[in-house]
């Protein structure tokens, strides 16, 4: 285990250095442009809902749509072939290609999935990738690092060196250097191949059943040339791409380029209903070709129909492969798809694709890189719950794993419902509450142990908890114990009552934060109870321990719903627990009714404060700014996805603070992720982007404020500016 972790850490370290800078610039750039483009669209949410509904319906009716499409394609004069798997598809296409043929291709991830180029070269054909990014990786003999920008891990300079070496005899000592020159060279070089080509192969982003039309989304124009210049056009794509009608394409046309690159529409939305009217062009014979065109549409199953039957993977088939989930992902931005990806696909949704088409082993290689920060849920134009797919697959990986020699170490400690063989780090973090309870009971001894070099060595080697991280300091007196002994505002004195959810960290580690929340709420006229309730399920869920999460969720919901029934609101400090109540419980609880009720009655603590102030509570009782004190605020990733981070900003501004907010998607700590030795350096690299935003001239003098335990730990470690939670900042000064 420890050797595996070292190898993972070394691989990540190499990518952070060699590929990270280019990926970060490109993916980060796409992400910023996407955010702007989406904000520009009034009916964005409506469009995503429409797109989602169309996909749900189309996958539901796939068999029927497939036969409608087949009829349309054949009526138009083409052929449709459904291939069971890669071998089947490759054999079919290879059969259409002659031994000395030149084949020109436009970008298609599906043909990467099939390794089609190898199959065609095996029959003696010469294959040229004409998308400039694909061309670069074909020449370099690399695999794509991103589903939209396959060469985004390479810089202009690197590509210039590559071309200078590979095409030396074409340059006469004066190779192209700038992006402009490199593009010009590639255009001419590939233009020659396209003019000579015998067969053109394209993908298809969407297929229209009613008309047999295929939609191709490109910017360069190469797909148009590949489809139209040679007399044989083969389009290869997955069976999941079928939409019923032309009008169903409209929301996707509006969403796909915005989500991918921040363009309103793609440079070229090619709507080809082959065989096309354009006669073939015989450049070599300088003759206008004939209108005798051949068109083959090859649709591959390769696991997709089984995904359609799988309740947890089905959603993956709605994916339109825009790459937004990769671009928005803080981890992806640092290392790219060569770490955060499997055999073919990369980014958050790759877990679903790889599990479905290549098998779970391919997904297991990178699945842990998803920290469950949820920022991709906001980015996905078809509203796929990508973290959920990652969690379910993690659970499947856990269940398939071999028992580990060190299991005895934690097995006795951990009351979970998971199989033997679950990796120790997962078991440990999934059962964080048990650990915290022991930690508090044994404090301060437990904290001395945590500081011991010997103990840290064992934790690092055996369990994979990185020695460079500070471990939490457990408080002997928990928040619950404090609250139970205390006379607070009585419910008879006020008409508003709430329970403050004592999450594991607030209850055992950040007890002062919990006290600050209680004081704040009471000062605003709310009677507060800290209930006797367990871990929400969020911790085991993040480790893919779904059964344990389900059982924790059940007990927690039972307790909290009793309070809701008694008219109390549920106030939550940790955004990830709020995310559990508002989103994950829909999957974890047996009835939607319970999940809906808890979701509707739980609030982020700052959201709650905001509501109280809006309803007339007196803000003067809170600690406001003296002289517009400056705040540098980082909203927790989950809070942002839930849309509640804005309340912290609103409350702080109301109290006259001058707030600067971060723009990075995540702090990099992400719960347990940053503790794991395999990922420590990646976690720090993500955190450094946040540090950079908080160390500008404008930000340096400001108080650092963040809304989650993870973010506060990460900022404390990297920035040493005593970051605080907003509730601690605004809490009335202590009366007791």
């Amino acid at each position: 285990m420890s050797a595996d972790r070292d190898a993972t850490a070394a691989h990540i370290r190499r990518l952070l250095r060699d590929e990270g800078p280019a990926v970060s610039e490109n993916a980060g750039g796409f992400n910023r442009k996407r955010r702007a483009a989406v904000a520009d669209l009034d009916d964005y949410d409506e469009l995503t809902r429409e797109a989602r509904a169309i996909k749900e319906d189309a996958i539901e009716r796939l068999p029927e749509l497939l036969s409608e499409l087949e009829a349309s394609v054949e009526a138009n004069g083409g052929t449709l072939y459904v291939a069971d798997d890669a071998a089947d598809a490759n054999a079919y296409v290879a059969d259409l290609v002659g031994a000395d043929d030149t084949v020109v291709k436009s970008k298609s991830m599906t043909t990467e999935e099939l390794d089609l180029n190898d199959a065609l070269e095996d029959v003696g054909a010469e294959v040229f990738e004409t998308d400039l990014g694909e061309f670069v990786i074909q020449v370099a003999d690399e695999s794509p690092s991103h589903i939209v920008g396959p060469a985004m891990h390479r810089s202009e300079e690197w590509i210039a060196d590559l071309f200078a070496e590979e095409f030396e005899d074409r340059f006469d000592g004066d190779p192209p250097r700038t992006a402009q020159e490199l593009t010009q060279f590639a255009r001419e070089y590939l233009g020659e191949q396209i003019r000579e080509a015998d067969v053109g192969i394209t993908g298809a982003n969407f297929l229209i059943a009613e008309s047999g039309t295929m939609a191709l989304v490109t910017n360069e124009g190469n797909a148009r040339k590949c489809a139209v210049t040679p007399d044989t056009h083969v389009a290869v794509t997955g069976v999941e791409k079928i939409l019923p009608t032309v009008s169903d394409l409209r929301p996707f046309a509006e969403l796909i380029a915005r989500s991918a690159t921040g363009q309103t529409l793609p440079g070229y939305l090619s709507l080809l209903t082959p065989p096309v009217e354009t006669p073939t062009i015989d450049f070599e014979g300088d003759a206008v070709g004939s209108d005798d065109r051949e068109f083959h549409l090859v649709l591959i199953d390769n696991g997709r129909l089984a995904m359609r039957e799988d309740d947890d993977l089905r959603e993956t088939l709605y994916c339109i492969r825009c790459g937004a989930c990769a671009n928005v992902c803080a981890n992806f931005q640092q290392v790219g798809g060569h770490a955060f990806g499997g055999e073919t696909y990369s980014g958050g949704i790759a877990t679903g694709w790889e599990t479905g088409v290549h098998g779970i082993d391919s997904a297991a290689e990178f699945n842990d890189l998803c920290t469950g920060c949820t920022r991709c849920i906001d980015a996905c134009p078809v509203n796929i719950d990508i973290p959920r797919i990652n969690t379910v697959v993690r659970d499947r990986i856990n269940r398939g794993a071999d028992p580990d020699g060190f299991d005895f170490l934690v097995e006795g400690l951990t009351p979970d419902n998971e199989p033997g063989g679950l990796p120790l780090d997962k078991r440990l973090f999934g059962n964080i509450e048990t650990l915290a309870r022991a930690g508090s009971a044994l404090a301060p001894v437990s904290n001395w142990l945590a500081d011991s070099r010997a103990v840290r060595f064992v934790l690092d080697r055996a369990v994979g908890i990185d020695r460079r991280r500070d471990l939490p300091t457990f408080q002997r007196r928990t928040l619950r114990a404090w609250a139970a002994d205390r006379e607070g505002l009585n419910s008879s004195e006020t008409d508003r009552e709430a329970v403050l959810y004592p999450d594991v960290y607030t209850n055992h580690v950040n007890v002062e934060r919990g006290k600050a929340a209680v004081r704040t709420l009471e000062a605003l006229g709310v009677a507060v109870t800290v209930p006797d309730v367990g871990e929400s399920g969020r911790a085991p869920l993040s480790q893919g321990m779904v059964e344990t999460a389900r059982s924790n969720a059940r007990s927690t919901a039972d307790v909290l719903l009793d309070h809701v029934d008694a008219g109390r609101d549920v106030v939550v400090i940790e955004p990830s627990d709020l995310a559990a109540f508002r989103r994950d419980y829909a999957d974890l609880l047996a009835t939607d009714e319970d999940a809906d009720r808890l979701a509707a009655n739980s609030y982020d603590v700052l959201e709650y404060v905001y509501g109280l102030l809006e309803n007339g509570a007196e803000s003067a009782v809170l600690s406001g700014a003296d002289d517009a004190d400056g705040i540098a605020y980082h909203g927790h990733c989950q809070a942002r996805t839930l849309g509640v981070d804005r309340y912290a900003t609103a409350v702080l501004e109301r109290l006259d603070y001058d707030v600067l907010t971060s723009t990075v998607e995540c702090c990099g700590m992400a719960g347990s992720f940053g503790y794991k030795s395999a990922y420590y350096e990646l976690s720090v690299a993500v955190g450094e982007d946040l540090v950079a935003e908080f160390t500008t001239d404008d930000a340096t003098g400001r108080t650092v404020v963040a809304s989650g335990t993870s973010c506060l730990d990460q900022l404390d470690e990297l920035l040493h500016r005593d970051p605080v939670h907003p509730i601690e900042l605004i809490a009335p000064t202590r009366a007791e």
Partner: protein
Amino acid sequence: MTTDAVSTFEDSLAALEVDSVRTSADGFEDALSETVVEPAVGAPLPFDDLTLDGTTVETDPSPADLDAARTGVTAARMAIADTGSIAIRSTAAFDEPISLFAERHVAVLDADDVVEDVAAAFDQLGPWLADDRASAIVATGPSATADMGELVLGAHGPREVCVVIVDR
């Protein structure tokens, strides 16, 4: 279409760095000759009062002409005001490759064919594709790539696009 839509369209084109000129049918030939860089190839226009006959544009090009052309002239059969997009229909007269191969594409558009937004465009695309089983390209701005580093205009397709908007 309303003048409003046409001026929105012109603004959208400008934002995409696409040139446009607006002319009456009478002024068409002069406007065209100002936008064309020779040698030029073209596809016959589908508008009864506008023609490329008598201009320098070769409307029955050989592959060699297509290869050598610096400008390709085709009709745009529809345009989208909000996005600055133009739609080119595939025809037996090579509209598609003519709009693609040369470094400069000049699109001739009837001002009446400007629709407001993408939704309205799909109202037209529906019958084209589903009833006529035609093919069309919705092109937005010049061909571009960022695959080699910074954004470069003129990847595999035209580097420059100019729309001649004709009030007929």
